[in-house]
């Protein structure tokens, strides 16, 4: 918690200085300043509620414990990925490897379980595999000046290829493996018929990850360094922030979270792991991060914003599946259009702020 100490607390106030005016005027303008960086996130939030209300009116049974909870459970892996992606993007990087890492860690983990390894050890190893890919990418980026795009592209290829070498057919976790425990349904609210609010340990893990990431980004030194690197790397370096160490850790965290998403996803689908899992998930994660208001140029953004971004994507999918008349062909076009709209909004806001 030491990271939260501000300069004002450390340095004793100099006597004889005029009191700084922190009257309501300052408060309001500061609020406005703040809400400007929050504006894209707020727009996303509005859009989310708009979509949900529209879906409720048009198709019904949306504000329905069963629907909401199953949506949350099925998007738990995406939430975990979006958290990792947010951290990477705030540092002005990108991680294209997450989808492929999900595939590798789930195939490798399930195969280890089938070889008779202890289930819990395998789960830890699944996360470890992800962290390892992240470590390689981070070292390439930091110490060999490889662009994040290329380094994580290489990891994406490597993870996908290795997963395919391990198995090109689905592998299924053995009966009674602890992995499957992660998909147990916990009924929190026992509603009438199927209207139950159920969560799974997988969703709980996602929530813990979100809370942990918010704490990490806002209350730890390393988290603040991430913002510093994204804002201006050379300034961060000159300020003596541990840029090199932090950057490598950023990618390790992102990789480990991808491994964790692999654990949660594999549990959710009943222990079945495939080498083709997770194709395009990195795009979902990037889209969620952008919709949630994080600048792709780094330095600004919030983990919680990205979670709203995930919900926007989830609501979009929900509407399209509930509607049924929308051609699935249009799904990618619509996703693209929403993404474009948010990027344009970001662009408009940042260019206004610069003026």
């Amino acid at each position, binding site marked *: 918690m030491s990271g939260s100490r501000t300069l004002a607390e450390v340095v004793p106030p100099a006597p004889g200085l005029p009191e700084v005016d922190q009257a309501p005027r300052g408060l309001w303008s500061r609020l406005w300043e703040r809400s400007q960086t929050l504006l894209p996130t707020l727009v996303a939030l509005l859009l989310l509620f708009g979509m949900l209300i529209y879906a409720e009116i048009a198709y019904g049974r949306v504000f329905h414990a069963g629907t909401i909870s199953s949506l949350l459970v099925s998007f738990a892996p995406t939430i975990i990925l979006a958290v990792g992606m947010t951290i990477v993007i705030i540092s002005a990087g990108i991680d294209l490897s997450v989808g492929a890492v999900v595939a590798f860690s789930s195939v490798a983990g399930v195969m280890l379980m089938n070889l008779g390894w202890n289930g819990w050890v395998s789960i830890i190893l699944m996360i470890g595999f992800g962290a390892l890919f992240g470590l390689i990418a981070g070292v390439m980026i930091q110490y060999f000046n490889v662009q994040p*795009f290329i380094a994580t592209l290489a990891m994406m290829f490597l993870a996908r290829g290795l997963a395919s070498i391990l198995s090109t057919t689905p592998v299924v976790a053995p009966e009674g493996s602890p992995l499957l425990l992660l998909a147990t349904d916990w009924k929190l609210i026992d509603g009438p018929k199927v209207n139950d609010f159920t969560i799974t340990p997988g969703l709980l893990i996602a929530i813990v990850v979100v809370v942990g990431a918010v704490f990490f980004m806002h209350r730890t030194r390393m988290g603040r360094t991430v913002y510093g690197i994204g804002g201006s790397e050379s300034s961060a370096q000159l300020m003596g922030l541990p840029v090199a160490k932090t950057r490598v850790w950023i990618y390790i965290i992102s990789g480990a979270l991808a491994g964790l998403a692999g654990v949660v996803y594999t549990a959710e689908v009943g222990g079945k792991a495939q080498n083709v899992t997770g194709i395009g998930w990195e795009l979902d994660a990037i889209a969620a991060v952008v919709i949630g208001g994080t600048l792709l140029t780094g330095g600004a953004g919030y983990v919680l914003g990205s979670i709203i971004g995930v919900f926007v994507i989830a609501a979009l999918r929900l509407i399209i599946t509930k509607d049924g008349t929308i051609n699935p062909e249009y799904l990618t076009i619509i996703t693209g259009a929403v*993404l474009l709209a948010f990027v*344009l909004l970001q662009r408009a806001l940042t260019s206004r702020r610069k003026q």
Partner: protein
Amino acid sequence: MKRLKTALRTPWFWGIVGIFLLLLVNTLKDPAYLAIGVNPTTGLLTGNLLDILRVSAPIILIALGMTFVIATEGIDLSVGSMMAVGGAVAMETLSNIGDPTSVGAMLTAIALAILLAVLLGAVNGVLVAVVGLQPFISTLVMMLAGRGIARVITGGQNTNATNEPFRQLANGQILGLPTSFVLAIVIVLLIALLMRRTALGLMIESIGINPHASRLAGIRPRPILIAVYVLSAGLAAVGGLFSVSEVMTVSVSGTGNQMELDAILAVVIGGTSLAGGKFSIFGSTVGALLIATLNKTVLFLGVPSAATPAFKALVIIALVLLQSERIRSWAFGRKPSARKPSGPERPAVGTGNPVTKEAVA
């Protein structure tokens, strides 16, 4: 010795070495790998080498377009989707015209495919140059939308068509070489002439090296940026035509899938820096050939084709490490070059590496 050193430092030199190594591996596995025979029914030459050249044609084209985009410090993630769009338009047109021998039908299909791709490329260009979006994100949007557009064009079907002249694009031969490969090389040469004999190439490089300085030197970035994305999309559509003409079917989800990554890889192998600036058309072509050879080699060695990415990853990692200053200063004992005036990189001294002496000689 000096010439050798220059060659060692030329990125595409390693690409050529890579191609020969892969061919060597294949020949070791099967001594008849390089043999070229004649197919008795069609009278055309057949052989693994010709196969490699044929599948390399689309990669050469998209890598060519990508080279210029990357040279302006951009990236075009939409080329794979553009291939699908081009292929979808062509197949849909051909199956609607329904004339299996008409050359006119082929030309119409090609023209429509390129036209639509050029329009979409212009959208990319405007988003990047006029609106000022990051190339990464605007072409990402186009990548998602393009795949959807291809689906809408064919109604979600994998349309197939019969048109003999069009089929000849990939399956015919000119002087024993696959038609598509010959056409791709002709296009590369034409564009290389355009870039190097006019100031266009220089302007593209200057935008990539320093946009502000080039602006002050009187280069207007917008038309050039738009042109670069239009060119990339158009070339990708032609690549898509080549790739669908091989089987005369467009697969809306499969055609050009992840080809943008192959294109980027080819450009990186060719030595064009992703940070923009100087580009090498020849290098990108070598890179595209290396990737085609790699794809075929992995298949030939009996590794499942889904595992190909792992080998590509090893190639990328080896190449970027070879190109990185740190490795070079270890290997060649050079001080991290003086090219980078900003940011005092840690000098290589103190690594305790005795190789350093060699460089002085």
